[in-house]
């Protein structure tokens, strides 16, 4: 009951914010909202777009869920996502003539390693030097973005040297699609990962101990859980998930590395995780909600002249509303 009420609260707040945003833009709310709905769930194409937009949000959302559950405030899913994209693209462009059975896993693995390594840096800084991961992960986001920018303007720039982007990935490294749609294999991967993360957290001894670290690190330590190692390991795992999401994006919808690909995914991931109340399975609907907003924003811009960026206002309101709802429940 409280669940339903807080969901209604979140939805109501976002609707109110949306109407306010549309009015500020001087558009007709009815037109704008119907465009939003059509663009996100109106037909098969819209639904597919929603799913495609939601996919990286599911996986980066899981990255944040894992970290927050262990009490690690990883704000760096964005940077880890970019490092994953960079890693997968760096390998993927050179895999012409290789079988897809090798190329796809190889690129995914590279992305996960790159993202995991990026998270690991923050983990080592935290445990070894006491640098709060909130700071280091945010700062590493900027470093990762700069690295990508440098790569697509330098060593990884397309052979034509015209735009700041890499060459397209080899076909073997692209994720297979359902014929005639944009639906790619990454969607299945995301659903699978959500299940795996849930199993890890709630059905293994490791998960039990990691959650204990998140809720009461002193008690966990005194019960023999190696807290330092858990924190580093969690940042690596969280980074690997975000990196995987980055790899899926370049191997799926994007096809190559752009300097300004899916900016902001790693930040929206925090909203996804919070809206899902750190439940890995709930991250799927939460990501679909944000993915739908994203997909519908384009239609709203085209049909009602409402700038798509105003949707980010709605996202912000949703986060605040979700936090208020969560707080009210715990009171």
């Amino acid at each position: 009951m409280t669940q339903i009420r807080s969901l209604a609260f979140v939805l109501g707040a976002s609707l109110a914010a949306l109407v306010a945003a549309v009015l500020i833009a001087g558009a007709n709310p009815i037109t704008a909202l119907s465009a939003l709905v059509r663009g996100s769930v109106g037909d098969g194409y819209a639904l597919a777009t929603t799913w495609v937009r939601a996919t990286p949000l599911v996986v980066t959302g899981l990255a944040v869920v894992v970290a927050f559950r262990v009490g690690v405030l990883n704000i760096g899913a964005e940077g880890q996502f970019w490092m994953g994209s960079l890693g997968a693209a760096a390998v993927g462009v050179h895999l012409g003539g290789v079988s897809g059975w090798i190329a796809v896993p190889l690129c995914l693995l590279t992305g996960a390693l790159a993202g995991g390594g990026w998270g690991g840096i923050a983990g080592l800084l935290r445990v070894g030097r006491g640098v709060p991961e909130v700071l280091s992960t945010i700062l590493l986001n900027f470093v990762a973005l700069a690295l990508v920018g440098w790569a697509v303007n330098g060593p990884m720039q397309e052979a034509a040297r015209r735009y700041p982007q890499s060459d397209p990935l080899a076909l073997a490294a692209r994720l297979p699609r359902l014929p005639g749609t944009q639906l790619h294999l990454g969607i299945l991967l995301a659903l699978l990962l959500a299940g795996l993360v849930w199993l890890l957290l709630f059905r293994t001894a490791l998960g039990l101990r990691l959650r204990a670290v998140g809720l009461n690190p002193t008690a966990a330590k005194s019960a023999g859980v190696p807290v330092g190692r858990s924190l580093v390991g969690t940042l690596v795992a969280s980074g690997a998930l975000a990196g995987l999401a980055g790899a899926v994006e370049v191997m799926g919808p994007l096809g190559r590395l752009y300097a300004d690909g899916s900016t902001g995914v790693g930040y929206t991931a925090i909203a996804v995780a919070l809206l899902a109340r750190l439940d890995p399975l709930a991250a799927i609907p939460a990501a679909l909600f944000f993915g739908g907003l994203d997909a519908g924003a384009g239609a709203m811009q085209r049909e009602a002249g409402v700038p798509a960026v105003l949707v980010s206002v709605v996202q912000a309101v949703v986060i605040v509303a979700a936090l208020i709802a969560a707080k009210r429940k715990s009171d």
Partner: protein
Amino acid sequence: MRGVSQRFGAVQALDRVDFDLRPGEIHALIGENGAGKTTLMSILYGLRQPTAGTIRLDGREVRIASPAQALALGVGMVHQHFKLVPTLSVAENVVLGDGRRPFSRDRRGENERVAALAERHGLRLDPSAQVGALSVGGQQRVELLKLLHRDARILLLDEPTAVLTPAEADELTATLTRLRADGCSVVLISHKLREIRRVADRVTVLRRGVRVFSGPMADATDDELARQMVGSDPPPPVRREPTTPGAEVFGLTNVRVGSGARPLRVAELTVREGEIVAVVGVEGNGQDSLAAVAVGLTDPASGERRLLGNPRPTLTPGDATALGVAVIPADRQADGLVLQMTVAENLALKAPPTGRFGWLSPGELTRTAEKLIELYGIRTSGAAAPAASLSGGNQQKIVIARELSRSPRLIVAVNPSRGLDLGATHSVHDRLLAARAAGTAVLLITTELDEALALGDRFAVLYDGRLNAAPPGADRDTLGRLMAGSEPG
């Protein structure tokens, strides 16, 4: 106070309690933990509003909405945890917040007034001393002085001796007697019958929020009061069967822990199979460091630590667990339990009942937990209840069940009965003695002399970061003197 009731959600903390305090008396308010003693006094001090009931002061009905109002009416309270600013002087703490002269100060005048006040009430205090540098007993005198400075005539003291050495407790008794002679009324919240017997004029007993006895101290024997508190005959004192200690399980030689202003220094400590070594001392004299070095939370800066016969210069809590060290930490909520997790999860924290690949089946988790709940008599609505929903005594039972069910070689127990009622304390003591009889080594670190005397085979005393073995056969007086820092002799 007439017909005072207080509800917290479903819990009836106080049920139509009457309480009378006469001018110039020391009135002991006793009862087990959770009986409602502190709640009742919090209402009198304006910290809580009663659900029902009235308060009359000098025949006039009053409503006390805040501690500020209580102070204005002459009612003051000294809490179990002092509310002092450690970096300020005694005089500054005393005048702080009295509302006089908000924008100017008269340092010398303050010091003189505070000194005169302390002199008048026979409180040994230097008004210019920094509060953080005072002993616990000294800080308590500052708290009393603060109230006297506000002209409080009714003093409420919550478990005032819990943190004092026996000598400091004696001094407090003398102070209270003098204040009574000056016409103050004192309410003494306690659960130590021995103490209140010496100083109280009248006594009120609360049991589960109900007043079960009130009358002159002389009208009731200790046994009767104990029975009133518990509601049945008190459990018989624990019996210690003689055992023959075996090989050393844990030992420290010339160990120094920490390098700060107050390191812990231990010349020699050894705990053998089948014995309980009781380390007594007033809170804050190195208990934390000693427990930490025993369970692997810290390593000695120098000296030798031995576990199961092997030197262990470095040790993690994980290693210690694997070697069979069990811990009953001082603060079960902070260090022992994850309150948001379920009883079952807490019970499984140290050794989850895993299948292949670290797989944790919920059924197995529940079954293991239910066995322990049954075996250790944990009162809970179920294995899936959050640990936070249990009472303090049952939370402690979760810790004990988790730690002792694994047949440990060494038990490190820090204040294992803190905050527990008589029944729960008794069951904790029984468990420790059973472990001892089974050949487990027990290092008991406690601030309760009675607990140490009831359980210990051998004794050591912590004072100012130094651990000294007590002479064999040391009695209550000797240990009390050592706790206050006098040399063994």
